[in-house]
């Protein structure tokens, strides 16, 4: 008989060991999957995990890890604040879209004027767009007690339709021969979120993600608000006794996560993506939820988790083209990795006991 016994303190050893165990388990079962598909399992896994980091063309892939990972980390950091306090924003995808639309909209409104002020204005607009989209569920929750999980999720679909409408209508490139999609901001110097050092993958979104990580770390470790967040998540009633104002906390956590998601959208649309198009959003908002949990809601953990996810995407695409693995197999592989990471986290907070329960 195996029993679970809650540890008095989360185990530090397992906090570090479980991700490694999970990755090893994924290697094994993923290898079995690849072998079943008739591919060399070792080569497949080496291609996914080794090639982007240390392969022949690592000089290209390493910066790409930043490009792919930055939006995930930026969004996940914001989400983790709320998740820690038991406030569930799962609509980051919508906030990401709205940030991109607001930001790109401001930039395009100034086209073709060139000014150093345009990009900062876009950043503000992007942050505002994301914030607005997240503050709706926050206000509804504070005012009416409406469930924020569901409102934020519903708003994703509203945002997606809004995106389609904008890329076919208002923001459509007037010189695009009627094709959907906005002008490319990469070709509009004042609005372009260019790489800070060419070829480094470092654009302002990466910088923003780094700042957000530090900010979240300090907030959670040192600041009174961070304390309020933690205590609300762990013991809501105790939080109220210690003077935490739940409404303000909800507004802060949702607003902040929306703001960061909006920023991620803005930096993406003005940099790597370049333009607003119907399929502009690629699910970063949802993937970031997984990243937040994989990172155990800890800022440093989120950075590692974001980079790990980015690695599987990049490595997965390499494996597709070099080994002919179907995209679906990569998806299943990613799913396995998530399952193992989530399942094995158990060992951090619980201890496995074998044998009958002792009589207390």
């Amino acid at each position, binding site marked *: 008989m195996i029993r*679970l*016994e*809650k540890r008095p303190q989360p185990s530090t050893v397992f906090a570090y060991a479980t991700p490694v165990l999970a990755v090893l388990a994924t290697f094994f079962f993923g290898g079995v999957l690849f072998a079943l*598909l008739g591919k060399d399992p070792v080569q497949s896994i080496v291609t996914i995990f080794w090639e982007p980091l240390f392969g022949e063309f690592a000089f290209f892939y390493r910066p790409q890890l930043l490009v792919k990972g930055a939006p995930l980390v930026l969004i996940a950091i914001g989400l983790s604040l709320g998740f820690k306090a038991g406030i*569930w924003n*799962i609509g980051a995808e919508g906030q990401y879209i709205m940030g991109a639309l607001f930001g790109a909209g401001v930039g395009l409104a100034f086209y073709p004027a060139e000014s150093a002020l345009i990009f900062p204005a876009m950043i503000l607009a992007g942050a505002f767009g994301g914030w607005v989209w997240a503050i709706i569920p926050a206000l*509804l929750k504070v005012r*009416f*007690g*409406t*469930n924020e*999980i*569901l*409102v934020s*999720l*519903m*708003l994703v*679909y*509203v945002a997606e*339709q*809004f995106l*389609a*409408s904008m890329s*076919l209508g208002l923001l459509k490139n007037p010189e695009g021969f009627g094709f959907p999609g906005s002008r490319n901001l990469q070709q509009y110097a004042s609005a372009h979120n260019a790489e800070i050092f060419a070829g480094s993958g470092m654009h302002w979104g990466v910088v923003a993600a780094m700042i957000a990580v530090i900010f979240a770390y300090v907030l959670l470790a040192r600041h009174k608000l961070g304390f309020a967040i933690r205590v609300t998540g762990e013991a809501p009633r105790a939080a109220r006794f210690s003077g935490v104002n739940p409404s303000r906390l909800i507004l802060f956590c949702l607003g902040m996560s929306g703001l960061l998601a909006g920023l991620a959208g803005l930096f993406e649309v003005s940099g790597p993506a370049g333009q607003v198009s119907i399929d502009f959003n690629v699910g970063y908002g*949802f993937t970031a*939820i*997984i990243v*937040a*949990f*994989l990172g155990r809601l800890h800022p440093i953990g989120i950075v590692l988790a974001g980079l790990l996810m980015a690695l599987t995407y990049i490595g997965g695409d390499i494996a597709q083209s070099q080994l002919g693995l*179907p*995209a*679906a*197999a*990569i*998806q*299943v*592989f*990613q*799913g*396995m990795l*998530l*399952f193992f990471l*989530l*399942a*094995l*986290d*158990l060992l951090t*907070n*619980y201890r496995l006991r074998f044998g009958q329960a002792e009589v207390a």
Partner: protein
Amino acid sequence: MDLSVINPILLIAALMSAATPILLAATGELVVERAGVLNLGVEGMMIVGAICGFAIAVESGSPLFGFFAAAVGGALLSLLFAFLTQVTLANQVASGLALTLFGLGLSALIGQSYVGIKPPRLPDLNFGLLGDVPIIGPVLFSHNLILYFGLALVAAVWAMLKYTRVGLVLRAVGENHDAAHALGYKVVRIRTLAIMFGGACAGMGGAYISLIRVPQWTEGMTAGVGWIALALVVFASWKPWRVLLGAYLFGGITQLQLNLQGAGVAIPVEYLAMSPYVITIVVLVILSADKSAAPGSLGRTFHASN
């Protein structure tokens, strides 16, 4: 513009068919959420059901057997979610999202050799003369077995929750798992069964798309229906008959939108497509006044030692 081309009877008959996949999946998810579990993996379970049902229907030649296989496939996949959330106590939101990712990939792998095949067709039931009665005939007596099964399922879930001991226990577990545990109910076992029921229903919903509504297999063919089903459960404030109402409302708006376009009415398609979600939010706000609506333990992890 000529609105007379819109035949309301045909419209209602069409929306009933269009709403059935959402109805099946949402009814299953309702039971899951009533047990206090939030499974965001509906889309993943639906698509796996869609391919399992399609493959077995093609191989066996029997659509009904396909539906059975879809239910089994969905339930098996949901077992993975149950293991993660009930045994290893993983977060439900993250596990559900991971389940969807996994399900989409898995279904595409299984379905590789089923692209471009036509499945056996499930005939409409023959009610004899009843089918010829004006208005009532086309609306009520012109459908296939699974559509009626969906309606029966709603009724059954309603009766189960309201009148049976099983329903009482299920709700008790969902409202307050600690109290239910203290009363001696096996919280984990009950929730696991509820999750499997939800998986089976979602699987059948998926198969309805791949075997009846479309019918063909293509990767990712559920195209977000699972998420609508999730919305619907909330829209319905966790009450079975309102799920039915909501499913018909969602289906109805889509059908009406298409009909109006066909009739030449210039409508802003994107904004109409948004409307069900906006309406759901409004309903949510109205419902918030009623604090009893959502199951008390929804989304919370249970462990006996807590």
